[in-house]
């Protein structure tokens, strides 16, 4: 038996963004994530599978992301957009022809894009199927998550909304993956006591929280956050390990800030002539990131030096070795003071790897390879751990999140607190409507759309974006729009509104099988 366990969990999520017309900037978040994160993630799993490395990793793909990944319209637009990126890649390879090392970097981007195109065609546009495959061969455990990434602790006053987020999240998981989920990713690791009862009622066995959910639990957990606790609802809560988290997340001490890594901000979208770029900036027309970046982080100032891909690749492998070495040291030490093998839970946003941290997928692949071959660590998912150690202490995790300062303040502050009176009123209203029996088909259809609109308004992304300021107008507009749609659909139920229902079903076609009674 190994001395301890390492559970790496990636959380892949994007808000549901699907506009009627093509070309909106926010829709590109999905395309960029496919190119920079999701396909590289599939590539690295494929490499490890080919090498027969005994990998175990948890991945949560949220329902909004899954719904976008199956959306024919979005996939068609993605293919079109990919061709534009490839055109830019050709131009860039030519433009940098005689300039070292820029040409090498341009060629790297071009190869990446060609690989994305080949993979996308190979999977026939279905990027969900390979994740299912990796689950079926035992490399990946897929976790369920809330319907629209609703921040559950701030729904304490509308428990029917907490329940609806969980029920819909689980039913989407079953629709996409054909099996029952065991694990649940709480959006933003947001927990408050009571949520666990809804998780238990939906057959879930565990969820991930931040460290202090366990450290501040009532009763004091014997193994701190190095073993899970069972909540009174009989679901296991796993607490994030701070050390592995800091090494990857921290701006100052974390790996991604290494000066040899590619700089995220310096992008030709802002550097080159408008005329040269106009075809990629269309149809919006304003300058934006293109993904073509030729400089390394270099320093904490604006001074930047050219990026050398080979150096950065070597650095990523070095950092991976350092990461695994540190986890081994941690486990070796903990094993001397505990009477059960400790588990280190290391959850990250999937989009960190590849999108923000360009070399992240190289790092992750190497970490998985080294950890799988470690004599100290055993790669597990929380489900595996519970099979090895079914007996755990019972305690109530503290209300908490992994947001700034550890509680609710990111999603409840001056820029976004105005949403809660509206969300609460809508939640209570829908609870009353959902309790009504024997409604005719037409009203049920209308309330199903109202349920979609309320779930979309509840996305934690909007409150978060309002706080960070960038794209805040968009987040405000989306929140108001979904709430206004909700009130239109649920007021004067006897007055027919077929046109509006049809229009909104086309506009926001998420959750094709939703039943509004989940809000009862």
């Amino acid at each position, binding site marked *: 038996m190994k001395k301890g366990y390492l559970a790496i969990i990636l959380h892949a999520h994007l808000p549901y963004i699907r506009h009627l017309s093509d070309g909106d900037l926010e829709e590109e978040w999905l395309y960029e994530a496919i190119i920079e994160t999701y396909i590289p993630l599939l590539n690295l799993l494929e490499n490890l599978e080919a090498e027969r490395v005994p990998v175990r990793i948890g991945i949560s793909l949220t329902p909004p992301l899954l719904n976008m990944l199956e959306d024919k319209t979005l996939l068609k637009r993605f293919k079109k957009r990919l061709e534009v990126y490839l055109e830019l890649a050709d131009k860039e390879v030519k433009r940098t022809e005689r300039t070292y090392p820029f040409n090498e970097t341009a060629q790297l981007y071009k190869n990446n894009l060609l690989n994305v195109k080949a993979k996308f065609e190979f999977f026939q546009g279905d990027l969900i199927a390979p994740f299912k495959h990796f689950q079926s061969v035992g490399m990946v455990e897929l976790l369920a998550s809330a319907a629209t990434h609703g921040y559950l602790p701030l729904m304490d006053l509308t428990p029917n909304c907490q329940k609806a987020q969980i029920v819909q999240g689980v039913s989407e998981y079953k629709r996409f993956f054909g099996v029952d989920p065991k694990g649940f990713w709480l959006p933003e690791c947001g927990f408050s006591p009571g949520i666990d009862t809804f998780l238990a009622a939906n057959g879930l066995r565990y969820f991930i929280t931040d460290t202090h959910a366990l450290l501040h639990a009532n009763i*004091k957990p*014997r193994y701190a956050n190095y073993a899970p606790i069972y909540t009174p609802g009989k679901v296991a809560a796993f607490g994030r390990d*701070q050390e592995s988290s800091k090494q990857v997340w921290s701006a100052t001490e974390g790996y991604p800030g290494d000066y040899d890594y590619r700089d995220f901000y310096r992008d030709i979208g802002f550097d080159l002539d408008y005329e040269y770029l106009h075809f990629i900036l269309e149809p*919006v027309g*304003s300058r934006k990131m293109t993904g073509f970046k030729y400089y390394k982080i270099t320093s904490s100032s604006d001074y930047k030096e050219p990026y050398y891909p080979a150096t950065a690749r070597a650095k990523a492998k070095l950092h991976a070795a350092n990461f695994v070495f540190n986890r081994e040291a941690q486990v070796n030490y*903990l094993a001397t003071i505990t009477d059960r093998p400790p588990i280190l839970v290391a959850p990250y946003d999937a989009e960190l790897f590849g999108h923000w941290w360009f070399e992240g997928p190289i790092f992750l692949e190497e970490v998985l390879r080294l950890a799988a071959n470690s004599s100290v660590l055993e790669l597990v998912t929380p489900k595996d751990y519970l099979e090895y150690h079914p007996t755990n202490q019972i305690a109530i995790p503290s209300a908490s999140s992994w947001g700034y300062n550890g509680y609710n303040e990111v999603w409840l*502050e001056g820029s976004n607190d*105005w949403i*809660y*009176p509206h969300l609460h009123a809508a939640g209570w209203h829908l609870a009353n409507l959902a309790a009504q029996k024997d409604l005719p088909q037409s009203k049920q259809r209308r309330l199903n759309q109202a349920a979609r609109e309320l779930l979309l308004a509840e996305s934690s992304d909007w409150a978060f974006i309002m706080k960070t300021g960038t794209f805040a107008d968009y987040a405000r507009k989306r929140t108001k729009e979904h709430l206004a749609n909700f009130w239109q659909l649920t007021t004067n139920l006897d007055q027919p509104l077929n046109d509006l229902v049809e229009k909104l079903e086309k506009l926001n076609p998420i959750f094709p099988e939703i039943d509004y009674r989940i809000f009862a």
Partner: protein
Amino acid sequence: MTFSLTTHKPDLFKNDLNHPLKYKGHEAALPSGYATNRLIAMVRDPYWLFCYWDFDNNSWETVNQYIKQPFFLRLLTEENELAKIPINPQARSWYINTYAPGKTISLELVVCTASGFLVLLKSNLITMPTGSVSSFTDELWLSINELYSEKYCLSLGGSPHYWQKEAKREEAHYLASPIPQLLPSAKDHYLWLDTELIIYGKTTPDAVLLQNDQVVALDPEGQFQLHFKLNDGKQSLNFESYAKNGLSKTKALTVERSLQP
């Protein structure tokens, strides 16, 4: 390109793009209230709560009738009143520092009339997170406190700003990392004074040392040195050392600085 969807990314990539594009189109209109008598309290963190309120038409009339009188939010536990916070009833929302982590709290919105307090609204109950390690231990398990402290320290060892902030909030209002100060421009006549605090000591080399709940790095001989900027005011620094054999030692140091103008 910014899909910064968790709070950790801005830490890493804080100079996010301020994109020139503003989202086009009108924002849908939402009602300014729902004409219901309602006072809702929500937990923000172990200390702070957020509350909002709404009145039906009759209650708005009452509010207007007393509009020149003082309105308060009463902060209540089951046993007593913790505070009475003067508010403007038309504000419709308020943030309150409860100074009551772990307590179950409710609010009342009251107006002070000639005949006493008139309660206009009562809120739901909320339980503030404790923000600290529980003092309850499970009777079914044998809890080893020293062991726990050690593991607790390790977890804290990787503290992100959450821990730093929390520690700051609790104890170290006047402690900060030494930050290079900008001197006034050389052409002005000036007198500039500042001071820093250096604390050093030694403990058993294999012990875990905490200073106000923050882990202190020890050298192989168990020696340590801390360097702070020292601001005006009184500060107490508590040191706890947990040895591997289960023994613990505690020492406290109080420092006061007062800079006269």
